[in-house]
C-alpha cells in the first residue's frame, strides 16, 4: 500500500487544483483574520468567542460544513473524480497490481491530508499567527490551548468522516461536476436538518451523525460522556463510510 500512497502524494503535489485551493484559502483566511483583528468586521457568539478566543473568530467559517464543503468537494472532484472521467488514469491504477482496497484507502489518506491542510491547517496557522501578533501572545493561555487541542482533535476525527463521504461520492459519480453538486446538496440537507427539523426522533438521529458532531466539537464545555460519545460516533461513522467506500470501489466497473 506504500506504493499507492507515494503515488497519490506525488499526484497531489503535482495537482494544480490543490495549490490553487491552498493559496485561495490562505489568502481568504489571512484577509478574514485581518478584517476581524483590525475591527473592520465584528463577529460575536462564535465558538471561539465563547471560549474567550475572540482573536480566532476568523476561523469560524472554516468549521461550517456549508462553507468548507466547497473546498473539500472541489479538491475531491479534481483529484479523484477527474481520474474516472476526464483523463481516465484510474484504469492504470486499477491495473497496476495493487488491491482495490489499498487504492481506495490510499486515496482516502491523501485526500484527507490535502483537505486537512486546506481547511484546517492553513486557516488555523494563519489565525494563530495573526492573533499571536495582534494580542502579543496573550491568546495562548493554558485553557485556550487545551480548548483548541480538544476541539480541533475532535473536529479532525469528524472531518475525516466528511472526507470519506466526499470520496465515496466522487467514486460513485466519477464526475467533477456531480461530485461538487452532490456534496453541496448533502451539506445543505444537513444544514436544513440542523436548523429546521424539530421532530424528536429525526432530531435524535441527526444528533448522532458526524455532521452534528462537527459542531459539538467546538462546544466550550463538553462532559466526559459527551466527549466519549462524540469519539465513538466519529470512529463508527468513519469505519462504516470506509467500508461502504471500499465495497463500492471493489465492485465498480471502470469505463
Amino acid at each position, binding site marked *: 500500500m*506504500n*506504493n*499507492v500512497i*507515494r*503515488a497519490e502524494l*506525488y*499526484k497531489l503535489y*503535482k*495537482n*494544480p487544483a490543490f495549490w490553487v485551493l491552498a493559496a485561495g484559502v490562505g489568502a481568504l483566511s489571512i484577509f478574514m483574520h485581518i478584517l476581524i483583528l483590525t475591527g473592520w468586521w465584528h463577529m460575536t457568539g462564535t465558538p471561539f468567542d465563547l471560549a474567550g478566543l475572540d482573536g480566532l473568530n476568523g476561523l469560524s467559517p472554516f468549521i461550517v460544513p456549508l462553507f468548507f464543503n466547497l473546498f473539500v468537494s472541489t479538491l475531491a472532484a479534481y483529484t479523484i473524480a477527474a481520474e474516472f472521467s*476526464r*483523463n*481516465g*488514469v*484510474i*484504469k*492504470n*491504477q*486499477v*491495473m*497496476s*497490481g*495493487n*488491491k482495490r482496497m489499498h487504492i481506495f484507502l490510499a486515496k482516502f489518506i491523501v485526500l484527507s491530508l490535502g483537505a486537512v491542510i486546506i481547511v484546517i491547517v492553513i486557516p488555523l496557522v494563519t489565525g494563530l499567527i495573526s492573533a499571536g501578533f495582534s494580542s502579543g501572545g496573550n491568546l495562548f493561555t493554558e485553557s485556550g490551548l487545551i480548548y483548541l487541542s480538544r476541539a480541533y482533535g475532535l473536529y479532525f476525527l469528524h472531518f475525516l468522516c466528511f472526507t470519506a463521504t466526499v470520496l465515496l461520492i466522487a467514486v460513485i459519480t466519477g464526475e467533477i461536476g456531480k461530485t461538487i453538486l452532490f456534496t453541496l446538496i448533502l451539506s445543505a440537507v444537513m444544514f436544513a436538518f440542523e436548523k429546521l427539523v424539530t421532530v424528536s426522533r429525526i432530531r435524535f438521529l441527526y444528533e448522532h451523525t458526524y455532521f452534528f458532531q462537527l459542531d459539538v466539537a467546538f462546544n466550550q464545555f463538553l462532559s466526559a460522556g459527551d466527549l466519549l460519545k462524540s469519539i465513538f460516533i466519529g470512529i463508527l461513522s468513519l469505519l462504516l463510510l470506509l467500508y461502504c467506500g471500499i465495497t463500492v470501489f471493489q*465492485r465498480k*466497473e*471502470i469505463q
Partner: protein
Amino acid sequence: MSEYILRAKQLTKKFKNGFALQNINISVKKGEIYGLIGQNGAGKSTLLRLITGLAFPTSGSIERFGNGNPQEIAAAQKRMGAIIEHPALFPNMTAKENLEVHRLQKGIPGKEWIEKVLKLTGLYDAGEKKVKHFSLGMKQRLGIAVALLGDPEFLILDEPTNGLDPTGIVEMRELIKKLNREKGLTVFISSHILSELYQLATVFGFIHKGKLLEEMTKKQLDEKCRKHIRIKVDNPAKGAMVLDRYLSAGDFEVMPDGMIKLYRYLDDVRSVSAALTKSGLIIEHFSLSGDSLESYYTKLIGGAGNE
C-alpha cells in the same frame, strides 16, 4: 508452469441493453502475438476490460498466468501492461512525471526505467512539454511507455495505432515485434484494421457482435485466403493422381470431404479440366476460390450477421 498466459472460458458480459460478450473461449500462449479483430462495437474493448480486471464477467472464468482466482488478480496485473481504449494520462504533467506516477504505484525501483521506456518509444526528447500539448501520436506512444514500465510479460493493447502517422504505425509494429522476438513478450492486440494486424499477429481471433466467430493461426489464415481452384470429382484419389502425374501439379491438397484444392494452374483452368475428363473422371464441381483478407473477414461477419 502453464504454457498459457491467458485462458478465458465461456466468458459472458451482459449489460442492461443486452449481451456485450457471449460465451467467449479464448487462449493465448506464451510468446504469441494474438490479434483480435472486430468492428467498432464488436466487444473488443469489453473483452480487454475483463481480461485486465477493470470490469467483471457476468459469467465464465478467466485464467491469467495459470491462476483463475479472481481474488488474486493483483498478482497477475503486476505482470501485465495495458492500454484500454485510449492512453490514460495526466494532462498537466510531463511524460516523465506521468511515468513517475506509474513507477511509484507499481513499486518499480530505480528511475532508470523511465528513461529506458522513453527511449524505447521515441519520447526521450519530449522534455518539459506537458502532455496536454502532446499530439495524439505522442500520447499513444506515452501510453505504450506506461504499459511497458516494469518489463511486463503480457502486453495488452487496444487499438494502439490510433492517431499514429504512417511512420509511427511502422515504428510501433517494429517495436512490438522486437519486444516479442527479443524478450518473448506475449502480446494481445485489438484492432479493426485487418491489414495492420496481419503484419503483426501470429494468431487471430475474429469477434463480431460479442461472439468469437473464429480463431486461427496466421498459417491457417493464409491457407484460407490463398487463391486456388476447387475441384470435386467422382473419384478424388484418382483425381489427385491425375493432377500429380499428368500435370505435375504438386501444390494441391485433398480435403476430408473429397474436395481438391489446387493452388497452381490458376490461369490455365482449361488444361486442368481437360486432364481430368480425359482420365474418365466426372467433374462435379470446378471453381476458382480464395479471398483477400478483407473479403474473407467481410464474408465471415456477413455470415454471422445473417444468423
